[in-house]
């Protein structure tokens, strides 16, 4: 077996360098696919961060006084759950509020330094039964009166529109990412089939000399996977570059709260990269396995 590993490594390396155009074609294909998928995911995560507070169809938030008694909170909770015009109401205790607060203001530590969970209000995120300005206004007025309630904040028309827009955008980007992944699989598969096609006579000869199918297949598969890895790494590099450009633009923008909350956390970028690398390699492996099985028959 030691010999075989030797042989496979030698053979794969040789194939890669003997047909530089095919190699470049595959790597470029994978690079483009990975880059596009990566950028789609980045944008998606940025948009989600920017509208995090308004995800899940929340239409208004009932903030309690930080000093509200448990009784007052229970009473509001009961009223909300019994009101037929309210679809869902989700309670956020001090710790949850604090966590959310920290997350929202992660880039301005001077803001978060002096805040402890104690001073934060608890709140209810409320989704009414219908998106109807009048109904929402009625509810806002009604709950603002309750004892222990500090303030009721309704998503303004503008925020609702942005949320709706960004929901559409997210869906669109997800669809695009899926389409691109599919395209990448097709392109990688095709590239490998093309490579095999270009060497079909060689494969023919190998079989006639007594090579088993796997002996012929393995170098092609390794080649595909290696190209996938190189393309994926280049694509991830591209994702980092795009992310850098976006970050610079966001920082340059006037301190408009919405655009500047379009941040992509570096751990998100890392997760996306790992996902892309794994996905790219898996894609390349599957595509080459299919191509190779399809073509290299006795």
């Amino acid at each position: 077996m030691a010999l075989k590993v030797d042989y496979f490594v030698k053979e794969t390396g040789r194939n890669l360098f003997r047909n530089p155009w095919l190699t470049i074609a595959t790597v470029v294909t994978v690079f483009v696919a990975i880059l596009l998928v990566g950028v789609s995911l980045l944008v998606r995560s940025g948009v989600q961060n920017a509208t995090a507070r308004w995800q899940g169809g929340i239409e208004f938030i009932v903030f309690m006084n930080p000093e509200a008694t448990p009784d007052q909170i229970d009473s509001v909770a009961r009223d909300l759950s019994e009101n037929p015009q309210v679809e869902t109401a989700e309670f956020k205790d001090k710790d949850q509020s604090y966590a959310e607060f920290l997350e929202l203001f992660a880039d301005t530590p001077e803001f978060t330094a002096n805040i402890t969970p104690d001073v934060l209000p608890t709140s209810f995120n409320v989704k009414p039964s219908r998106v109807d300005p009048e109904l929402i206004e009625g509810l806002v007025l009604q709950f603002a009166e309750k004892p222990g309630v500090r303030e009721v904040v309704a998503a303004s028309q503008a925020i609702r529109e942005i949320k709706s827009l960004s929901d559409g955008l997210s869906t669109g980007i997800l669809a695009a990412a899926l389409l691109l992944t599919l395209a990448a699989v097709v392109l990688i598969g095709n590239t490998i089939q093309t490579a095999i096609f270009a060497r079909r006579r060689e494969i023919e000869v190998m079989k006639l000399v007594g090579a088993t199918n796997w002996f012929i297949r393995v170098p092609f598969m390794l080649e595909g996977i290696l190209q996938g890895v190189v393309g994926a790494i280049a694509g991830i590099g591209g994702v980092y570059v795009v992310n850098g450009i976006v970050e610079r633009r966001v920082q340059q923008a006037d301190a408009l709260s919405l655009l500047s909350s379009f941040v992509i956390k570096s751990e998100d970028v890392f997760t996306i990269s790992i996902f892309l690398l794994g996905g790219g390699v898996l894609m390349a492996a599957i595509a080459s396995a299919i191509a190779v099985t399809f073509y290299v028959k006795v």
Partner: protein
Amino acid sequence: MIKLDKVTKVYKGEVVALRDAEVDIQKGEFVFLVGASGSGKSTMLRLMNKEESPEKGRIWVAGKDIAELSSWKVPYLRRNIGTVFQDFKLLPNKTVQENVAFALEVIGRPRHVIKSQVPAILELVGLAKKLERYPHELSGGEQQRVSIARAFVNRPLILLADEPTGNLDPDTSLGIMKLLDRINRTGTTVVMASHDRGIVDTMRRRVIELDRGVIVRDQARGVYE
């Protein structure tokens, strides 16, 4: 060793390349296949290593009915059969040395065996100085000799040679024939298609003559015609 029982090969449903061929070749025999161009010599050899399958009849090689061989076993059959192809069939991306080594690599021979056997066999066919050349950098006759070396190198039970001297001058041909004879004397069964009257007449071995796919002569110590 090789037995053909009423074998008929039809290409594309209309070209009858071989008709009811009956051949029985014993272990250690040396057989010439002769006949005009297109008479079916290559077809018969291709049937023996399962490069083609017959339309009718059965073929036994080394005691096994090769039609019943499952497809993943075919490579193992072929490893017992060395073949010199009429069009050489060298791997264009491998050097002379690697082409020959390939036949040993596929059967998993250890590296030191390959390192010693490959140059030895290439020396034998007179290509000791061209180990690192690629096929397109060789003359026609040199390519043919690489093909011969590859077919020999793993000491197969059976050697099928399709006009192995077609591109060689008389002197080199003679050398190759001596080599084939020596191989044959160590017990290897040799089946060789040839249209070289001189060689067939000198060797005086069993001759099977084909005419438009039909065996018209099977003679123990025959001549070309």
